[in-house]
């Protein structure tokens, strides 16, 4: 992206003050509610504090404590399992649906709209809906299938169920991105390949997919970043970390540690920082690939 055009004209000399006025509110918000909290979380991570008793400085104790805590290890593992279950399926299904939509059949536009519906809804509300659908005795799924599976309280099934609901709610959104990417591929490229005798299968793997690379990478990275932070639907489906902690992903652990398990704000801060470091690393890796358009990908 070219750097901003420099325009020199006399009327543009007194911009400093105006800029100050225009930027003041958002700068305040940024400083007070994004940057300052990072400093606070660093400070909290060095203290033991439960909000009731006075804060006590403990140095790196919380770090040793958390990093050797099997509960936290379990949370990291569960988070990775969640990401690994969700992302490949979400991406593959999204790509598949996008390819079908680009076949240009009448009505494709309507399907596109339908697929996005879950994505507009609160993950929490969707989680509650699915909690009923997956309920063991009066839930819709068991009812329809005529079975009595404990989808959400069986330790072997809880994580796949939670991942499945997440995939269900995200596929449409992923589809939209791939659709936009596929539509942008110039028709001439495809036609040239067709003239050379390539069949549809080959055109997909050897031409469309490589050209979709940037879209694919964008979807992967933003997907991974948001999956690492997943909370709402998991909270709704399996509160308190799920059966035997099998869905106790990192966001859920931070919440439980800080607000449900005796207010261990110091320990929770350490966990939040670990998550932060992981997310920053992912983002930086992504930036290396997307140096030119950093910011579309940061969300």
């Amino acid at each position, binding site marked *: 992206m070219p750097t901003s*055009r420099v325009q020199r004209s006399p009327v543009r000399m007194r911009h400093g003050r*105006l*800029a100050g006025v*225009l930027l003041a*509110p*958002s*700068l305040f918000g940024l400083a007070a*509610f994004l940057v*300052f*909290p*990072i400093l606070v*979380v660093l400070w*909290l991570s060095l203290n033991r*504090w439960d*909000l009731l008793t006075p804060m006590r400085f403990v140095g790196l104790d919380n770090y040793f404590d958390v990093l050797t805590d099997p509960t936290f290890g379990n949370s990291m593992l569960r988070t990775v399992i969640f990401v690994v279950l969700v992302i490949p399926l979400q991406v593959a299904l999204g790509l598949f649906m996008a390819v*079908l*939509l680009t076949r240009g059949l009448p009505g494709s536009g309507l*399907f596109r709209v*339908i*697929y996005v*519906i879950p*994505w*507009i*809804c*609160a*993950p*929490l*509300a*969707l989680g509650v*809906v*699915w909690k*009923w*659908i997956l309920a063991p005795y*009066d*839930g*819709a799924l068991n*009812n329809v299938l005529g079975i009595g599976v404990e989808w959400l309280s069986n330790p072997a099934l809880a994580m796949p169920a939670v991942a499945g609901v997440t995939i*269900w709610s995200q596929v449409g959104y992923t589809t*939209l*991105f791939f659709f*936009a990417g*596929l*539509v*942008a591929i110039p028709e001439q*490229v495809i036609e040239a390949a067709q003239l050379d005798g390539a069949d*549809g299968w080959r055109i997909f793997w050897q031409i469309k997919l490589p*050209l979709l690379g940037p*879209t694919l990478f964008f979807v992967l990275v*933003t997907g991974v*970043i*948001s999956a690492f932070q997943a*909370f709402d639907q998991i909270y709704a489906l399996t509160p308190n970390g799920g059966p035997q902690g099998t869905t106790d992903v990192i*966001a859920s652990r931070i919440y439980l540690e*800080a607000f449900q398990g005796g207010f261990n704000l110091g320990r929770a*801060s350490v966990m*939040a920082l670990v998550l932060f470091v992981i997310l*920053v690393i992912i983002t930086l890796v992504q930036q290396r690939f997307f140096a030119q358009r950093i910011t*579309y990908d*940061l*969300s």
Partner: protein
Amino acid sequence: MTSADRTESTERTPGRTRRAQDERPEGAGRTNGDERADGIEPTAGAESMTGPVAAEQPAAPEPSGRVRSRRRRKPLADVLTYGVLVVAALLTIGPFALSFMTAFKSPAQFASEPSLNPPDPVTTENFARLFGGDYGFVSPIAVTAQVVAVILVGQLAFSIMAAYAFAKLRFAYRDTLFWVYLATLMIPQVVIVIPLYAMMVQSGMRNTFWALVLPFMFGSPYAVFLLREHFRGIPDDLIDAARIDGAGDWRILWQIVVPLSRGIISTLAIITVVSHWNNFMWPLIITTGRDWQVITVATANLQSQYNANWTLVMAATTVAMAPLLIMFALFQRTIVNSISLTGFK
């Protein structure tokens, strides 16, 4: 804006030809289908990286986003495609349909009949219980609406101001500062809820309206970024002309720049409404009791308290989702395009 202006700005920035066209403000010769122009944006980015072939040949997807068929029709493949598309659509809509149906069933019918049976008779008793009596679902809706309204106005106004400064003014450390804005995009909510909570407790604002809105109402770095990109596409000549005609900076911003950017601003408005209507973690943490409960928290609490009472709970999820679903029905095209534009979260 005259077409001469546009041509000139295009010529002056050859590398940004496409962008200038994409950002051509509405009203300046935008045809109906041109709404799609917004949606092209990420694609344009993707394209620029797909190598020389794509770069030489800027794709011009059809405005509606529909794809012209590229090949001879293959009936069997078409039937299979429709089959998959329809099944996927049913799987997508199914849970919604089931939950809406359940919301209109009596608990007795729910307990005695299969889940797929339609409500018979259709009853609104679940909604009546939800809004009247013990559950008091009116308050969460009112609170959420107020929170969303305040955040929406604040975030848009302050983001527009900042974006204008970054796009059109020259001042010291502008690029450094913008870089800082961008860097804060990396800070996820889940990392800062604990310090924010501590800050709210220390300042006595826990469980207040201000705790719900303050962290979000001063603008979002993401909105600033998107708006700045758009504002940069507005020709400086236009602004200079207005200035010569005696318009002050404030007037230029609100009466020229903002009206020319209705598309991106409505996109951002939708993003803000959706993400804050649906926000859950922060309100869950910072509010206790009923006073400032938002709709998502109320729904979660209802579910955990009346676990087996699914007709009532499905009425609650219906109420929680209905406003956004109605908004989606009204603005589906803009929303679908917004998503491909921004990848908003």
